[in-house]
């Protein structure tokens, strides 16, 4: 089978792209190893809600129309929303289709999916940023008596044995699961490395309202000082809860969760934590306050100070100076270790080696894989703007990339036409007057253009 574009992944990014391609009458197919919103169905714990408020959760041509714009969508509703969206836009999704390899071919790309071979002139990778858990090497040294799991396999505290739980990592995932597991009666120790502290709301508005209003989410990837760092920053310590509560480290401490430093190593069954916890927390507090300063400056400049409650600052993160530097994992006190240490995308099926950086990450310029013309990636953190990390970012990213893809296909067709004309001109000269007339050549070229899939 041959088509113009293949989109790999039928999540929010792949569907947004499908809609953009349909708008441009570009023939395409969306492949997914499972169903629409597969990762949301199978790899997210049921209590998860989006970090972004409902009013912000929008897809191309589709905004939130429910009665709770300030709420946070539970994962089950995300599945419903995406499935409905796929039907609404008539996305040509092939479900239960696992892409095994994508490699370059003379006219674009060869995609092996299940046992079929597809050819496409453009490929959009929309498989997401969270395919595999990033588990540190220290995991190998955890005693076998301890149950270990990752956010991709975690469902609810009931699946954990009784006893203490060490949650490693204090991103959105880490703080959410630390709180949930601690509430189940299993005492939680949370190992905290570099993290991003954000209040759920500030001066009466959700933090995402501020991030959007101040223009921070719209910051472009090519205007960010340290892009690699921005792309690999842990997710902010936020939870989508029904009551919009803040789940920072102070809240967890108040709840009884024990906060320790970054997990360094495990030696003879003893976990060792970094002594840099105080500074790690200071850095996060300072960074949050810089953001709030920026928000206040924007509010003043926008004349909103009378409308909004007055500025204030949150209490600095309390660090217990006696927080332990060691924890014996073989004593029985800790029965489970949960690795909330981030995720990695999985592009192992991409058989185009030139596209990888030293770190194994895909090399791209705002989603355009320049070293492999016709290849695109979508739905990754800070892909084109800071909003790219969130669902609504795919709306503008897909617009930009579909535009680029459209130009690419058109230019490719033009070049094919020119190449063909040149060939015919050459062969015409070679054969003297017996070659095709100029009109015949044009017709032939036009015929080719019509025949090529659009």
């Amino acid at each position, binding site marked *: 089978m041959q088509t113009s574009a293949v989109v790999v992944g039928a999540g929010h990014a792949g569907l947004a792209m499908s809609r953009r391609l349909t708008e441009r009458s570009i023939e395409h197919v969306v492949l997914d190893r499972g169903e629409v919103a597969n990762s949301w169905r199978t790899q997210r714990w049921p209590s998860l809600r989006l970090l972004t408020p409902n009013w912000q959760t929008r897809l191309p041509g589709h905004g939130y129309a429910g009665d709770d714009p300030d709420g946070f969508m539970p994962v089950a509703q995300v599945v419903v929303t995406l499935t409905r969206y796929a039907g609404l836009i008539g996305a040509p999704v092939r479900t239960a289709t696992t892409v095994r390899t994508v490699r370059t071919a003379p006219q674009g790309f060869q995609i092996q999916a299940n046992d079929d071979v597809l050819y496409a002139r453009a490929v959009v990778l929309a498989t997401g940023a969270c395919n595999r858990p990033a588990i540190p090497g220290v995991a190998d040294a955890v005693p076998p008596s301890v149950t270990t799991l990752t956010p991709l396999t975690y469902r609810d505290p009931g699946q954990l044995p009784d006893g203490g739980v060490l949650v490693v990592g204090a991103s959105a995932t880490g703080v959410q699961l630390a709180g949930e597991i601690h509430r189940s009666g299993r005492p939680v120790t949370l190992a905290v490395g570099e993290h991003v502290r954000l209040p759920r709301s500030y001066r009466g508005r959700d933090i995402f309202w501020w991030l959007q209003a101040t223009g921070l989410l719209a910051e472009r990837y090519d205007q960010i000082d340290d892009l690699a760092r921005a792309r690999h920053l842990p997710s902010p310590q936020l939870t989508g809860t029904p009551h919009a509560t803040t789940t920072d480290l102070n809240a967890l401490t108040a709840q009884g969760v024990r906060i320790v*430093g*970054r997990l*360094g*190593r495990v*030696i003879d069954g003893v976990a*060792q934590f*970094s*002594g*840099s916890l105080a*500074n790690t927390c*200071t*850095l996060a507090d*300072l960074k949050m*306050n810089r953001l709030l300063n920026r928000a206040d400056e924007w509010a003043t400049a926008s004349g909103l100070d009378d409308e909004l409650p007055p500025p204030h600052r949150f209490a600095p993160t309390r660090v217990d*100076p006696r927080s332990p530097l060691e924890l014996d994992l073989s004593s029985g006190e800790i029965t489970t270790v949960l690795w909330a240490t981030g995720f990695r995308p999985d592009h192992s099926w991409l058989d185009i080696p030139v596209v990888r950086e*030293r770190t194994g990450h895909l090399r791209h310029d705002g989603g355009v894989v320049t070293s492999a013309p016709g290849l695109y990636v979508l739905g990754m953190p800070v892909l084109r703007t800071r909003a790219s990390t969130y669902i609504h970012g795919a709306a503008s990213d897909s617009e930009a990339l579909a535009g680029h893809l459209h130009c690419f296909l058109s230019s490719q067709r033009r070049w094919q036409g020119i190449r063909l004309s040149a060939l015919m001109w050459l062969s015409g000269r070679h054969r003297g007057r017996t070659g095709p007339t100029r009109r015949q050549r044009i017709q032939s070229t036009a015929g080719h253009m019509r025949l090529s899939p659009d």
Partner: protein
Amino acid sequence: MTITDRPVDNGVNVQALLGAREALSAAPEAAQFTWRASCTWRNGTHSRSTVAGFTGLGAEQQHRTTYEFDVDHPECFASEDNGATPVEYVLVGLVGGLTAGVAAVAQHRGIQLRSVTATIEGEMNVLGILGADPSVRNGFEAVTVRFTIDADGSREDLEALIAQSQKRSAVFDIVTNPTRVLVELA
């Protein structure tokens, strides 16, 4: 922050550091450094260490001169006190690294420093190294560094300076995080 006409000059060549960061990101093998010291026992607890060369930027490098360090224990440990104790060298390394970081970060952020002083204290229960109490560790129980900084910056700016300096300090990382150490007989 006081606005002055004079450009901020803390004596740190930030442009060179930023250039090095870019160049070394492109040539990661040159970023691999090996730092070295050698040590000769003199007598009793007294030893003398020297630092002369190191490897980095893909080549052998030399300090401007060879530096020597006498290491000993104090008289109250029945030693001759021919030099600072090993743990004091650790404190010197940590506070020196943090102070260098303060200057570099201040330069990068456009903060003119007038004076920077710091005191550093490491608390230790010597029952650990004496082997008298197995529940006491050999090393420091806690280390406290206190900076006094006179500079063109708000208190928040200066707090951010020392926070960033810790974040980028090699010695801070070495002291706060486990490091694999191998000691063998040649």
